């Protein structure tokens, strides 16, 4: 699996130890901070902050760069569209009666920087937080919604079960794929009809396995006395500590700076 985006990377860094609630709040604060400003000063500050986050999380630069790869096509596409549609600012280059304006380039650049920053901060969150901690964090943060009878706990349980089963289902998919490859199924080549058949040979068993697993899990949960909505204690209690506060406050400080540049620069 070459998927880096959204994958947890088991390292031991300061960021890995920060409370998931703090990280989730910081993520939203930073997302707003990325979209508010126009000034390059704000983006410089944000970029420096992101680089600091990457360094703190001990994720290698290579890993981060890998997440950018799928975006290259989109960036080029965006640049072309912007060059064709935006006709303000200074003329940067002219050829065959067609002019490229500075605003087009700057606009594209800004969008690209925003996207890259967004990717970095979400990658930092998902790479440093175990999926289950992430759901736990979401559950805590959504707790106030219980007032309006929103089933927060059940939702969180569903998310954690779904997350827990992603690797299992991937493994199962690989296994069935291998079994069908052994029977001569070619998942890469072949005519459309062959391809449909190949996919069918994968999906039908996968569904049957998934349903079987779901029934088994439901039985196992019931056998251990799980009742949806009942009060439960937790093995792992989240504690909001000093670093968590520092992390959240630094995100808020960045947001404040972004708003400041928007108003005064």
């Amino acid at each position, binding site marked *: 699996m070459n998927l880096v985006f959204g994958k947890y990377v088991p390292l031991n860094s300061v960021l890995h130890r920060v409370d998931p609630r703090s990280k989730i709040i910081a993520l939203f604060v930073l997302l707003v901070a990325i979209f508010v400003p126009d000034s390059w000063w704000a983006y410089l500050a944000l970029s420096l902050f992101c680089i600091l986050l990457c360094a703190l999380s001990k994720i290698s630069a290579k890993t981060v760069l890998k997440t950018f790869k799928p975006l290259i096509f989109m960036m080029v596409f965006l640049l072309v569209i912007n060059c064709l549609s935006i006709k303000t600012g200074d003329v940067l280059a002219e050829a065959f009666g067609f002019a490229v304006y500075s605003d087009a380039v700057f606009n594209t650049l800004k969008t690209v920087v925003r996207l890259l920053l967004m990717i970095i901060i979400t990658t930092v969150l998902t790479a440093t937080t175990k999926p289950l901690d992430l759901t736990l964090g979401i559950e805590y943060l959504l707790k106030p919604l219980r007032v309006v009878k929103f089933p927060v706990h059940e939702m969180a349980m569903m998310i954690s079960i779904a997350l827990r089963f992603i690797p299992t289902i991937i493994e199962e998919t690989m296994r*069935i794929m*291998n079994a069908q490859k*052994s*029977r*001569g199924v070619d998942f890469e080549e072949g005519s459309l009809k062959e391809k449909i058949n190949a996919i069918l*040979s994968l999906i*039908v068993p996968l569904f049957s396995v998934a349903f079987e697993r779901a029934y088994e899990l439901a039985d196992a949960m019931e056998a251990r006395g799980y009742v949806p909505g009942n009060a439960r204690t937790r093995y792992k209690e989240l504690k909001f500590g000093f670093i968590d506060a520092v992390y959240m406050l630094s995100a808020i400080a960045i947001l404040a700076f972004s708003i400041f540049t928007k108003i005064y620069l």
Partner: protein
Amino acid sequence: MAITFKSLSYIYDKGTPFAHVALDKIDLSLEEGKVTALIGETGSGKSTLVEHLNALLLPSEGELEILDYKMVAGHKTKGLKMLRKKVGLVFQFSEYQLFEETILKDVAFGPMNFGVTPEEAQKKAVKALKLVGISEDLFNNSPLDLSGGQKRRVAIAGILAIEPDIIVLDEPTAGLDPKGAQDIISLFMKINRQYGKTIIIVSHDNDMVYNYADEVVLMSKGHVVTKKETVEFFDDDALLDEYGILRPQIVMFKKMLKDIGFKLKGENRTLEDLSKTIVKEVRR
């Protein structure tokens, strides 16, 4: 030699923090027409090794020769699909690969993928299903409605219908009742004796291994520890103790007989052979 591994290594997720060496410089050759048992604790690399036999995994380092095919790390080998026709792989819990509407269609699926005409594939499917003992009145039922043991048989028939020269089985009897397990093993022995097919079997059932395998390959932590004739392997007390391998019941029984001074002639690998020898000895 049907299969030759030359200092083959396999590393999962190479170049990531998840990198894990599953096979470490394997040197091994397996002969044609034999029944080879692959044993070793969980995580010793048996399944990874087996997946190489079918080119589902390609070597990270070193090389692998199977019949006329040669796979070298870092080089692309052509015709891997036809290799899969020659090496049939029956996976652990193979019943999960069934998907067609009818049993017959499912078994014919393999041969058809390898370019056999539908009529021919159907013939092969019928033959394979009869071989594994699925009765004809079930042929048009859905494979998903069968019992676990029957599903396993149908899945195995799906591989046999491809008519491979080498059949690789990854714990074919896991989760089956003793009778079902015995039937499946007898079936493969029959295929080995009658059609001379090479059989490689991954197993935790040492009694079964002792009864049927010609050779035993012991794996541990990604290495091949040894390859020996079955009887010789289970006579090597030092080796068995070092790797904590359970002795087959017959081996223990023979040892007890020997300890009380009972003399046994011949190999006596199955319960039937042993009881015959004992009866003969007692009568004398």
